[in-house]
């Protein structure tokens, strides 16, 4: 499950907030986690369920100098700050087919075993699936499991994700494009784990603005840093849309 970078190090996650991105439309959650890790200067402490994700390796995506440039990064990594009480699991590749349930179970077990304070899922949903009422206003929504304080977000004026009417008066959660968000949310509700889902409606494309919005909303709630009025982008975000056209062609 969790493999530490250095086997002699131990970590106390009690009262730490665990943040997980959903692998969802536009990779908004993953981009938001990149912003958190880079701007809060979180320390890499290990790997989480690497064998459940498609393999991928690269050098340090958050390097700031030549010193820390060449350290190997894998598909899933855990970043932590004990002073800011935050732990982020960054997921960089899709889940292996059929492993979604296994991942959600492993995550909830790890959450309970290490006594994290709460689980925050950063996610996104297909913008084209919005109902008429959702077309108006902000695309940002939240969800919280039954173990959370229901009054928590009243002061921020955030909108909760509306349930869909499926006929006969039945209403269900409808989360197309959200990856494992719904499954993890349901599992947390059943296991009495406080899970808050922050999500936005979006379409595939340049999803940096949505990622910044999601991170700002999270920071508005958790106040990780008051200095974070503008978010710096990690160097791994260069060439998100390929190389620039060579000048020689003009």
């Amino acid at each position, binding site marked *: 499950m969790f493999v530490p970078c250095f086997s002699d190090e131990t970590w106390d996650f009690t009262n730490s907030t665990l943040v997980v991105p959903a692998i969802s439309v536009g990779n908004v959650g993953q981009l938001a986690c990149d912003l958190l890790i880079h701007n809060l200067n979180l320390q890499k402490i290990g790997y989480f369920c690497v064998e459940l994700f498609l393999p991928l390796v690269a050098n340090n995506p958050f390097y700031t100098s030549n010193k820390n440039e060449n350290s190997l990064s894998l598909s899933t990594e855990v970043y932590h700050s004990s002073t800011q009480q935050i732990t982020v699991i960054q997921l960089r590749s899709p889940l292996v087919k059929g492993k979604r349930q296994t991942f959600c179970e492993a995550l909830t077990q790890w959450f309970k075993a290490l006594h994290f304070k709460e689980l925050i899922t950063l996610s996104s949903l297909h913008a084209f699936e919005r109902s008429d009422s959702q077309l108006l206003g902000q695309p940002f929504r939240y969800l919280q499991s039954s173990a959370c304080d229901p009054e928590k977000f009243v002061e921020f004026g955030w909108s909760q994700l509306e349930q869909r009417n499926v006929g006969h008066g039945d209403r269900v959660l409808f989360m197309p494009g959200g990856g494992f968000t719904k499954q993890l949310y349901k599992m947390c509700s059943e296991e009495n784990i406080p899970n808050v889902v922050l999500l936005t409606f979006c379409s595939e494309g340049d999803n940096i603005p949505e990622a910044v919005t999601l991170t700002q909303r999270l920071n508005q709630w958790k106040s990780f840093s008051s200095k974070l009025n503008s978010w710096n982008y990690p160097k791994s975000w*260069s060439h998100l849309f390929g190389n620039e056209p060579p000048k020689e062609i003009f």
Partner: protein
Amino acid sequence: MASFFGEVLPVISRAVEDEESDDEFINPEFIWKPSDDSGSKQFSPNWLVMAVGAVPAGFLQCHMELTNSLGNIVEINDSKEKTIIGFYSSTCGKVIYCISSTYILPDKLWCLVQKVFEVVHCGENTRVCLLDADTVYNYHTHSIAKLSLPFLRHLKTSKHPDVPDIDALSQPNMAKGLTAAVMSYCQLNKIAAALYICYTETVLPDAATLLAFSKLTGEEPFKTSKVPKEESLSRIKLYLQSPANNQTLYI
């Protein structure tokens, strides 16, 4: 919602009925087929060299002595066997070379890596060397026009010593596939491993790309089992003349 046939369905629309259902995991069956009667014997070499793809496979076949075949890992699919990785040992017996030129579905890679390390035991002193290739069109940089092709880049696990002569693979470039799976396994299990990626102009090997890895032939483990230069040049000629590696449209 009324569907095409008029019945009333308890869903909003057929198009959005499926909220990304998770497909069932299919456990692939990989088995070890030894060339002799060694059965399930586990090898414990000093070096494990793995070449993935046509260019690295061509490099090993042209520059190294790969006469001693140890066996293959094959995939059983609908009672049909398909060779996935061929295993060879060096004349000194301290190096095991693995060659894989077959495309493997990414979902099956972890099972394959597990099988490789069941066949080859990597202890504290074992070093793993991985060779991979990709086209330069997948390489991200600000100054692509200044690069002379083909070129090598490397990645290494934290246990591996520094590689001074070859540049590191810079962000945002990454490696995927079988070599990434092996590198991940090595990083998690504290095994010293280095991955060398050759960026080429073409997908299939040509004379220049087959020589790109020759930077490594002066280093361990290649320098002890490399063939003489004249021999490797004639092997390159023969290799490129074979129809499978010929790049004309009119074969």
